[in-house]
């Protein structure tokens, strides 16, 4: 009789959000994930649903008469390469939930094809990147924040929903080198139109009027310079604004974390631009940094890898044989909404679920190749599904945390069925595309 042995894997890095928690431990038995320690509920779910059952694609699939049927890897790769070569304006999109090694191949394929190359930042922190390009920023690693920060601001960001362990590991509750009393050494300020779970924990909750963050930051900048501000700005009374500003001015080390409340609302990159300038100006009286709450575990990697390879982080067009950058023209939603893209390779992302309907309608019309592990709205639209192993669970890789710290992701178990890693899939597509005439 064989003993079933439970293997405990330590120093596991969770492949869910930009917090990239690297203190996870996983019990594996007979190649099944049995128990996950230390991860939040979302990270735990990601590990547990790796176990196949009916959730995973384990063979390449092609759509015949409306239904997905299995085909061989060789046929699938050939079909993918033909679709991409035939297209006049193929779109390569996604790449945030995979390794830097795979993101590299994404760039190579796009360059070879003269394609449009974009990643999920274009619907997340793309505006933040644009603002940073315009005005720079003062940042720090999460380690510095954990050790030093005593005033923590979450502006237009709800970590309790999207980065569940962020406050426990990096900002508010963790004991830091100079903040050894944890939350007792720190002040939490939350700015949000809703009284979220994060807001409920705050020492100061600012119920900013939705879409009026720019005005509020502008008022703070003015008050910082000693200029008088109106009785109410963005729904917040002047007294409250000045009270919170005093806390920020007196910080030993302050951090402004921010999220979609600034990037997805009216003003987009200008909201981040003005927030960066407020933080810059606070440095005249204190020490402040600003830090975007990057959503996916390696969206920072996509921007980083493509920036060093092409000079640009997202919304890149290779149609002229060299990279050109123009968010608003070459972002995925732009080329889909305008009806320009005539084929799509979607890697490690789900635009079917997360793009506006007008873009999804267009995705439904064009040949779509999806590299994914689970059934998603995107795979529902796909003509070809290439089953991937999960980085950080079934294949190793490098990812960049939200603060640009690169962390290695381990392999915890073998991938199911015929799954290949994103790197292997993209490498095969790249080689096949090169074989076909342009």
């Amino acid at each position, binding site marked *: 009789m064989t003993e079933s042995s439970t293997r405990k894997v330590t120093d596991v890095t969770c492949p869910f959000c930009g917090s990239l928690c690297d203190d996870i431990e996983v019990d594996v038995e007979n190649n099944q994930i049995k128990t996950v320690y230390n991860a939040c509920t979302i990270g735990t779910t990601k590990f547990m649903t790796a176990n196949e059952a009916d959730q995973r694609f384990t063979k390449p699939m092609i759509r015949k008469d409306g239904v997905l049927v299995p085909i061989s890897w060789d046929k699938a790769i050939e079909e993918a390469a033909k679709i991409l070569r035939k297209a006049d304006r193929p779109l390569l999109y996604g790449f945030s939930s995979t390794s830097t090694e795979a993101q590299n191949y994404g760039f190579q394929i796009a360059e070879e094809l003269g394609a449009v190359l974009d990643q999920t930042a274009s619907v997340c922190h793309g505006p933040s990147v644009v603002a940073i390009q315009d005005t720079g920023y003062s940042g720090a690693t999460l380690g510095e924040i954990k050790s030093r920060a005593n005033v923590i601001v979450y502006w237009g960001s709800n970590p309790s929903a999207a980065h569940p362990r962020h406050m426990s590991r990096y900002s508010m509750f963790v004991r830091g080198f100079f903040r050894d009393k944890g939350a007792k050494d720190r002040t939490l300020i939350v700015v949000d139109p809703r009284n979220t779970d994060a807001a409920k924990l705050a020492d100061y909750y600012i119920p900013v009027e939705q879409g009026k963050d720019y005005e509020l930051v502008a008022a703070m900048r003015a008050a910082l310079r000693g200029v008088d501000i109106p009785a109410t700005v963005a729904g917040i009374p002047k007294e409250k604004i000045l009270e919170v500003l005093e806390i920020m001015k007196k910080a030993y080390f302050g951090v402004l974390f921010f999220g979609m409340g600034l990037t997805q*609302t*009216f003003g987009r990159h200008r909201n981040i631009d003005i927030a960066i300038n407020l933080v810059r100006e606070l440095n005249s009286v204190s020490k402040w940094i600003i830090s975007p709450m990057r959503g996916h575990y390696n969206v920072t990697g996509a921007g980083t890898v493509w920036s060093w390879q092409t000079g640009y982080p997202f919304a890149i067009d290779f149609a002229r044989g060299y990279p050109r950058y123009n*968010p608003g023209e070459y*972002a995925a*939603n*732009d080329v889909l909404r305008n009806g320009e893209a005539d084929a799509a390779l979607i890697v490690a992302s*789900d635009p079917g679920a997360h793009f506006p*309907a007008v873009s999804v309608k267009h995705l*439904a019309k064009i040949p779509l190749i999806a590299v994914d592990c689970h059934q998603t709205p995107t795979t529902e*639209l796909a003509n070809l599904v290439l089953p991937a192993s999960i980085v950080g669970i079934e294949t190793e890789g490098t990812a960049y945390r939200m603060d640009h710290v690169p962390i290695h992701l381990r392999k915890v178990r073998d991938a199911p069925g015929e799954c290949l890693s994103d790197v292997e899939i993209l490498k095969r597509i790249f080689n096949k595309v090169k074989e076909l005439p342009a």
Partner: protein
Amino acid sequence: MKANLISGRTIQQGRAIEGYKHTDEYTRAAGIVEIDPEDMKKLKIYTGTVVKVSTEFGSVNVRAVLSSNYPHPGLIFIPMGPWANAIINTDTTSVGMPAFKGVPSVLKPVPEEKVLSATELMRNLKK
């Protein structure tokens, strides 16, 4: 009832996207609209009532849920996903980003109607 629509993350939506997008769990997590308690009273509905949320860009049926993030009268929240994306503003204002937050909308209870699954929403977009 008129309201300002925003979309974003929730813990339940975060769990559902990790392998459950083809199931009811996703519909329960993201096919909902969180409404302020005072607004719920005005609409005379309960958690579970199907409502139609309409904007300039389309309309979608979702289940009403009493918001735990009140007070936010006049503001409604649909978790990110294909239900919210059926009706949000597609204009990227020259920076590539659609308006996922801050879309004027109108709510109407439609208790006799259904909430579609994500798969059904995709099938409709294929037509």
